[in-house]
């Protein structure tokens, strides 16, 4: 017997008893619909949480703190994060980039710009892995990212600067008490226009100068900072994108070493204790916990990421979803009993037919198959219709405010309804309150079909056991 014939027999039978099929379908439709809507509410809630978290910062970033004080390292302390350890981090699965935010704390230098070094600021730079800049969420508003391979000549150092870096310069010709010594970001002139900073970071030459501190006969070193790109101000990526300087770790270390030589060995006794802050970028939020685990295994305990908070939020939503989904599942269970009942009825009605088919040489498997297809089809159809209705319900939930407005219902009830929806579903952060992704659609239909099939097993076996002889004798 061909599958197509089996399918046709089954569907013909369903069509034959339309009323009962439809009633049974409705049960499945309601069950599927409830499950889909409940899960869609949970998904929407999760998405809202995620959006909220994203506004706090990058979810896929992990921070490792590894501060060691002085030279007194004990054996239990986490290993020093050196360049080799950085490579270990980078080699971990799912890790896209790892970079320190190196701050040359012992480096004491000034930046000068303008005619006769009129404008000045303290030098304070971050040393980062040039390859990681983009991954760390730093975006460039003009120019390019650092590559680490730039060569502008002797004593010229490529840097990225924050878009408002120019405001950190002060005018050394004005007195400390004068208001004109500084220009603040957002400062307006008499006409209400923003005042430009003293230094135009994209044009003006900036000189880094360090001295040995000898007031009478100072030894100095000078470098020119070449602005390769200007960073877009984004506090999620770090405040330095607004008014800081970023250069490659190696350049910053070079500057630091130069300074140490300049001032003499007296103050160079600080041991290289590795990087104390390292950022790691992971390819996907779902892998953050995994990477964190690996880092912990290396001995680092002070790890922070937003995804830790995210997990707590998700666990909470999940609990809620399980409760709601469980309630919905009960209605699908009732639907399953309904299907089993319908199929049993159908088999009683068709006993004679089954007997005739058996006598005429229909194999048992085919008879079982026929009934399983029927119950599976009820599940499948119920699932499909249930999903369609879920979409409608979801649309209504998401547009409840608009719909109520359109219907012209009075304000009072509007507030009440709105409040109920908001309160009940944790809505209020904006965005949709019911989201139905494709996998939920597929999952719901597959699950409903499965429920149908399972409900059909017992009745189908009953059909198989019918005695052909007794069946054909029946009038």
């Amino acid at each position: 017997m061909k599958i197509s014939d089996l399918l046709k027999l089954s569907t013909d039978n369903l069509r034959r008893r339309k009323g009962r099929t439809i009633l049974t379908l409705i049960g499945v439709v309601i069950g599927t619909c409830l499950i889909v809507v409940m899960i869609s509410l949970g998904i929407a809630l999760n998405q809202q949480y995620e959006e909220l978290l994203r506004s706090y910062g990058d979810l896929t970033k992990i921070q490792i703190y590894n501060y060691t004080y002085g030279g007194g390292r004990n054996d239990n302390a986490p290993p020093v994060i050196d360049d080799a350890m950085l490579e270990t981090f980078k080699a971990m699965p799912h890790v896209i980039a790892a970079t320190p935010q190196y701050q040359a704390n012992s480096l004491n230098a000034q930046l000068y710009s303008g005619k006769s070094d009129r404008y000045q600021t303290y030098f304070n730079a971050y040393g980062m892995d040039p390859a990681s800049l983009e991954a760390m969420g730093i975006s460039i508003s003009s120019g390019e990212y650092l590559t680490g391979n730039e060569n502008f000549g002797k004593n010229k150092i490529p840097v990225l600067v924050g878009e408002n870096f120019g405001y950190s310069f002060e005018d050394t010709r004005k007195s400390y008490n004068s208001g004109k010594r500084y220009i603040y970001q957002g400062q307006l002139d008499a006409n209400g226009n923003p005042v430009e900073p003293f230094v135009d970071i994209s044009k003006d030459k900036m000189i880094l100068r360090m001295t040995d501190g000898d007031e009478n006969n100072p030894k100095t070193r000078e470098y020119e900072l070449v602005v390769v790109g200007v960073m877009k101000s984004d506090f999620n990526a770090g405040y330095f994108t607004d008014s800081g300087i970023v250069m490659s770790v190696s350049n910053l270390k070079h500057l630091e070493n130069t300074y140490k030589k300049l001032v003499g060995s007296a103050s160079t006794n600080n041991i290289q204790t590795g990087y104390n802050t390292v950022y790691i970028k992971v390819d996907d939020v779902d892998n953050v916990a995994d990477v964190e685990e690996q880092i912990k295994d290396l001995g680092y305990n002070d790890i922070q990421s937003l995804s830790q908070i995210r997990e707590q939020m998700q666990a909470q939503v999940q609990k809620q979803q399980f409760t709601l989904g469980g309630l919905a599942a009960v209605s699908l269970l009732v639907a399953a009993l309904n299907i089993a009942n319908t199929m049993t009825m159908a088999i009683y009605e068709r006993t004679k037919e089954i007997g005739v088919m058996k006598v005429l040489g229909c194999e048992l498997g085919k008879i079982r198959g026929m009934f399983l297809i029927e119950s599976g089809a009820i599940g499948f159809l119920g699932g499909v219709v249930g999903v369609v209705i879920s979409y409608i319900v979801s649309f209504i939930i998401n547009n409840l405010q608009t719909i109520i407005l359109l219907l012209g219902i009075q304000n009072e009830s509007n507030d009440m309804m709105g409040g109920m929806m908001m309160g009940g579903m944790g809505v209020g952060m904006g965005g949709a309150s019911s989201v139905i992704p494709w996998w939920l659609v597929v999952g719901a239909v597959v699950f409903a079909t499965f429920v149908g099939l399972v409900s059909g097993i017992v009745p189908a076996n009953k059909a198989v056991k019918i005695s052909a002889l007794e069946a054909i004798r029946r009038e």
Partner: protein
Amino acid sequence: MGLNPIVRVEHLRKVYRVGKEKVVALNDVNIGIMPGEVCCIVGASGSGKSTLLNQLAGLEKPTRGKVYIGKHEISAMTENELAKFRQAHLGFIFQSYNLLQNLTAVENVAMPLMFKGVGRKERTKLAMAQLKRMGLAKRANHKPTEMSGGQQQRVGIARAFVLKPRVIFADEPTGNLDTKTTRQVLYSMLEMAKENGTTFVMVTHEKDLAGCADRIITIQDGNVLSDIVVDDATKAKNRAAMFEGIATNSVPDEPVEAQADNASKA
């Protein structure tokens, strides 16, 4: 025709349990039916003739003894093996026709072909040919409820013959029909059996029907009372009497439509 019987029964015993009592339906039956024979099993009500037929067809398992069809011991087969065996070698005609009510005549006839896995087009063609042979071409797309008893039984016959089985079992095939229709239906069955060389085993309680058979097995109280091979002369006489008035070479009746059909052809 071979020398070995195609249907063979050895020491067949069937006991039913009714409540706490045992009812012996068949005691110790030994029979053999030769290939191509028309065999009638006769007996009074409750003699066990229907039980015997069910055993022969493998619809019930015997309490003891063996049933062979050809080389196959069908009494030892599983239900699925039996299903396959029926598909390949057996046909059935029932007293109450047992057509599926929601299928048309042609779909009913095509059903055994469907179980065998024959495609829709091919099986409809074969079923139509079979219905035409039974003079029911015009009724092909009618449901059983729209047909007379005789017509329904002819659909049943077409269904039994459509796979050209080796053996056909018929349980009181004319039991629900009037005399005239009975004769026509019997004629159709015997003609088809002869044409296809089918062994035809029929249970009946009507003596004159049995008279047309090659072999008459009489059952009484679960035992074979007699097993007679009818001689050709008697058979010819009986058949002539039985089928008097039924045109020997024509397709059986379809009175009104057939005439209209012929008229339109002429």
